[in-house]
């Protein structure tokens, strides 16, 4: 028992990283040392945690097992093939990943999926009612509120929130509210005009 660390306070992560590469380099390592190494590895290399999660996405119920590290964005894109929600930065700096959770706009890249039990998530795929587009989608088409289309789902989800939150009293207010959604193509005229046409 004397070789066993009592807690992670005893060994720093840096120590583990350093010593582990030293261990790896040695060809002959006694079993006792190996056991010790494996023990501290378990302390310092976090285990993958898989958690159960039930939620509704675009009104469809899901019962999932998700990695505790998985963001809502990666859950949608990589696990559920709902790739309409886009990754533009993964750091909450560009707005491309905007979705609605329980009716409110949320950056899905900054939201861990596991924090959303029993939530209602709406993505761009859930905005239209069958073949009938949401008025905001129609407005983006009519006003050419995009070019490459990559930021567009996030723009539209934010635009819907912009109208719902009543931030459309002027061009200036729309532009200010929508400035968390970057469009590198610069289709800001079309985006602003689309929102204004819906707000009227």
């Amino acid at each position: 028992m004397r070789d066993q660390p009592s807690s992670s306070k005893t060994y720093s992560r840096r120590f583990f990283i350093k010593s582990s590469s030293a261990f790896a380099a040695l060809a002959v390592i006694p079993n006792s040392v190996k056991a010790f190494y494996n023990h501290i590895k378990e302390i310092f290399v976090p285990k993958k945690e898989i958690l159960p999660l039930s939620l509704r996405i675009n009104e469809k119920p899901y019962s999932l097992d998700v990695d505790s590290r998985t963001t809502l964005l990666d859950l949608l894109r990589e696990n559920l093939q709902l790739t309409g929600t886009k990754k533009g930065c993964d750091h909450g700096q560009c707005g491309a990943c905007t979705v609605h959770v329980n009716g409110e706009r949320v950056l899905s890249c900054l939201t861990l999926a596991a924090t959303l039990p029993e939530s209602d998530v709406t993505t761009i795929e859930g905005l239209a009612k069958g073949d009938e587009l949401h008025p905001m989608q129609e407005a983006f088409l009519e006003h050419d509120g995009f070019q490459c289309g990559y930021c567009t789902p996030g723009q539209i989800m934010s635009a819907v929130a912009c109208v719902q939150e009543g931030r459309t009293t002027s061009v200036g207010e729309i532009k200010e509210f929508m400035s968390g959604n970057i469009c590198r193509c610069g289709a800001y005229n079309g985006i602003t005009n689309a929102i204004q046409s819906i707000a009227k």
Partner: protein
Amino acid sequence: MVKPFNILSNRKGRVEGKAKVTGKALYSAEYELPKLAHGVLVGSTITNGKIIGIDTSIAKEIPGVIDVLSYWNKPNIAALENAEKRKDFPIHHTFFHTTKIDFNDQPIALVVAETLEDASFAASLVKAQYEENKDMDIDFDNVRKRVDLNDMKDDRGSSSNWQNAPHIVDQEYEIAMEVHNPMEMHATIAQWDSANSLRVYDKSQGVNAVQNNLGALFNLDPKNIRVTSEFVGGGFGSGLNMWFNTVAASLAAKQLNRPVKVVLTRPQMFTMVGYRPESWQRVKIGAATDGKLLGVIHQSKHTKSQNHHFSEGITAIAHKVYGFENVQRNATTVPLHLSSPTWMRGPGDSTGTFGVESAIDELCYKMDVDPVDIRMKNIAPYEMQTGNPWSSHFLDECLQRGAETIGWENRPTKPLQLKEGNWYTGYGMAVGLWNAMRRHAGASIEMDKKGNLVIRTAMTDIGTGTGEAIVNMAHEFLGIPREKIKIELGDSIHPKAVTQGGSWGLSSLSGAIAAASTALKEKLATYASTNDQQWKAASIVLGENEISMQGKPDQKVTYASLFTKNNLDTIMVEEYSSAGEEREKYGFCSSAAHFYRVKVHALTGQVKMDRMVIVVDAGTIVNPQAAANQIIGAGVGGVGMALTEKQEVDINSGRLVGNDFAGYHVAVNADVPLIEVSFIDKPDPHINPMGAKGLGEVGLIGAAPAITNAIYNAIGVRFRKLPVTPDKVTSSFNSSA
């Protein structure tokens, strides 16, 4: 020659619009393949030196990790096996085949795992050992002083002819490193269907170029490589090259015999897929008292990387835009320990134009003449380098319309005249010019029994509206209702086409669409003609259900009977086209006039774009809504270039600082007004069947100097270094107080 048109669709918006607003459009990282593994690139933590070992032992113990590729663990690639052979390839294709490190965050490993989370975490645990060389060149301001200028050897006249001109401006101008940053991060999915067959989904502006690059690398016939870039989330030049993400995914897929996806992170978008190089230029211009511009000396230096030559021709604009009788150009590139720069929207010309258009504005204030008048007087009367007449050139009309729209006559002609509260108002203008090019491109048309068309080309649509432009052009050439046309593009299985870029996309494609349309009509004429009734191909009009002859309303045959009579399932045509001898006879260019109004805050230094008017001559406007959108976007890019965009580099370590959207500021919605765009919309008579000259670049060229010229008009401070951030403005107020 066809007439310019402005067709409004019955269907709303662009042909691909519905896919984009519903989230159904698939970008390169979004294809679902069985057994797809995730790869995450690891970058070097040193800037200069050699990697001598890599420790992947902990990374490999992370559950889900499949393999870690690096210099020490990669498939054998004959083309890269020795240093001599590697010279045939750009450095950014060979990172796993060299131990030399030339810039910070140079890819050194690819961690491949079952999930993105596993791969990302394991990538953080890869450790490398280096031999670091602290002797490195990072600081452009210092290093450029050691690098001499080269004579460009294409002088016109002589600089000695005008050194005693009554009015001379001689100034230096600088622009910070800018990064493309399309919203979609570069991504590749690669899968080997067999040892000799590679399938790639890539974020690229040109699928045929990627096909050829991969073919050379893996010693494959490009026919055995299929590259798809159906939806491309922006480019601005970053997708003109094939970068290491494409190579790494292909290597890993080969090594592991399963599909691998590699998506760059946003910080990696600053170090692995190019940028607009930091630049210095000197512009000396002389003018006569009547406003005639006598001569120009234009000199430039810009950065590049250690092992990849790149020169973007900053001084080319001195030759083109004005009728200077005397031109001297000198330029060079400065190798630094940074990653490789590449072409970014309006490459060379947008940088050079900042110098030239700023210098002319300075000259105007010195001479007390109207900046519009001096430009009207000096517009290049013909293509100056060749002496060829312009095929078409309406910069004068752009200037007149722009001046009228913004109310140029009523502007203050001196600085510091308009102030409301703490806001000064100023007006500025500048012009832009871009060579109108046309390259080789192909297209096919397939017609079914109902007369529906599918038009295919390998060319990509990077957001420019290529797809909708094809619909419009086919409608124009064939008369067929637009609703009967479907587009398939951005795939190397379609007819080859030049990479989308340089504003030549639509210009190049229009020839192919015209040729394919003609070929289709010829086939239809042959199928329709009988002994009793002859059909002339040129007069065929394709309708909803039948073809008819122009001017002969009674001569009709339905698609159904035509196909039945000839026992056909489909009719296929495929044609290619290039520029021809018109290039020897004429000069071709698009041009733009920018007229801006800015407000400058005396206390905070904020510069607010109050009004932006851009008038463009780009020949026929094929797709008015998307064309305006392009120019609006270029204007937004110009605001970034002038006011916000600067990639900071730590000159001690060679590391980028703040390389993400929090540290690197692109213009957002609130940074720009609703931009006012108009087109001259007159067809160019020679460039291509559509008369369209291209407009992706020209809207950016001249935008930045129009902004700094407006700032001068507002507050009387001349900014010669971009970007003009608020700190620079406030310190200029402080120093002048």
